[in-house]
């Protein structure tokens, strides 16, 4: 009897694969039509499956419902911003990009425009797309991927930090300003 160990689609690569006993036909087989008896090959961990309907569909429904209720409460409580009608003659000070691009604006303050506006974002996008092709480590376990996790965490922290700085700590003419958050000694607290 041929032994087949389920390899799947690359699952479990990099960790010890325990070959579990294979299910084999119990009845003796004979005759040409049963020359190759059906082999049921399954690893034990693959057997722990559930039907997506209703198990997964139910979770999706609940998650969607909770998200909808949350958004409904937020939308009733907090109004979307709407300032004065656009006027190209009056420049607001500071003029800021939407929050998810404020990190880029912050970079522009610190680096030459070609670097901050073009080179960095292009590099990040290309590097992100190429990540799976650069990272040759086959393991998915965190203890085997310390470098990758450290690099990605640094990237995430930098991105968040630049956005936080741009949104909360930049004031008139995009200059650094503590008083927006911590108040000014001579003025009532803004928060």
């Amino acid at each position, binding site marked *: 009897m041929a032994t087949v160990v389920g390899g799947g689609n690359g699952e479990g690569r990099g960790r010890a694969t325990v070959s579990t006993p294979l299910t084999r036909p119990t009845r003796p087989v004979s005759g040409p039509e049963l020359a190759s008896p059906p082999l049921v090959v399954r690893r034990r961990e693959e057997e722990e499956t559930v039907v997506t309907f209703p198990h997964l*569909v139910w979770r999706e429904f609940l998650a969607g419902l909770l*998200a909808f209720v949350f958004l409904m409460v937020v939308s009733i409580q907090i109004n979307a911003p709407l*300032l004065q009608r656009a006027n190209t003659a009056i420049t607001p000070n500071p003029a800021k*990009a939407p929050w998810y*691009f404020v990190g880029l604006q912050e970079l522009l303050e610190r680096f030459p425009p070609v670097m901050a506006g*073009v080179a960095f974002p292009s590099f990040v996008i290309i590097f992100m*797309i190429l990540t799976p092709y650069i990272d040759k480590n086959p393991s*998915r376990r965190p203890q085997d991927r310390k470098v990758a996790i450290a690099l990605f965490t640094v990237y995430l922290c930098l991105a968040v930090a630049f956005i936080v700085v741009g949104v909360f700590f930049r004031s008139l003419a995009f200059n650094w300003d503590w008083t927006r958050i911590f108040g000014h000694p001579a003025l009532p607290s803004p928060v």
Partner: protein
Amino acid sequence: MTEHLGDYATEMSATPGEVNPVRAFVAQLWGSIFRHGLPTTDKVAARTALTNFFLHIHPVRVKRSAIRVSYTLCLGGLSFFLFILLTITGLFLMFYYIPSVDQAYQNVKDLEFVATFGLVIRNMHRWAAHGMVITVWLHMARVFYQGAYKPPREFNWAIGTLLLLTTLLLSFSGYLLPWDQLAVWAITVGTNMAKYAPIAGPYTRYLLLGGRGVAQGALIRFYVLHVIALPLIGFLLMVVHFWRVRKDGFTGGL
């Protein structure tokens, strides 16, 4: 007669020798829409998932560990949910919004003060858009930390990156539409960044704005990008993304 109608119709059919025409009609009607009854057994549940158009986006069975909430955090699903919510609320806003510099701002004001539930719908569109940027980001981080981008899923990670960019561009293009001070100056700052690219920069900015400044040309371009082009691109990328999730298999718990 009831053979092709599935379990429900068989249950509904009258006792032999007595055919109730109403019951037969209901059975046929029900059976023609829903091929199977309630998922009382795994077998019926599996066949339902297999034959229902809206459910066939899922595989019939998945590893239990792959759909644990503590593993997925529902982030990909929530991003898709927000996309649908944004499409629906956006459709509602489109009935009231005219992409003209003379009318846009007043239309948004009318949405706030005149149209029934206009304020809530606009708020929801705005907050869901911010929420989608966040959930897509977190989804990417989740996939990275679990190493779920590794072979055979390299290309699906690339599609995911493009989906993140599409999400950012969708949000950015929508930012201009209210035509208030916040919108115009945020887009001015944002598109000024494109200017710095060597050689192509100023041309890219001109192409994007349809002129040298943020004016009517920019508004109509951003509007068309926001309501037609980018949603279509995003939808197409999502279809491929989900299809590949199915074909490459779910990663499952670590």
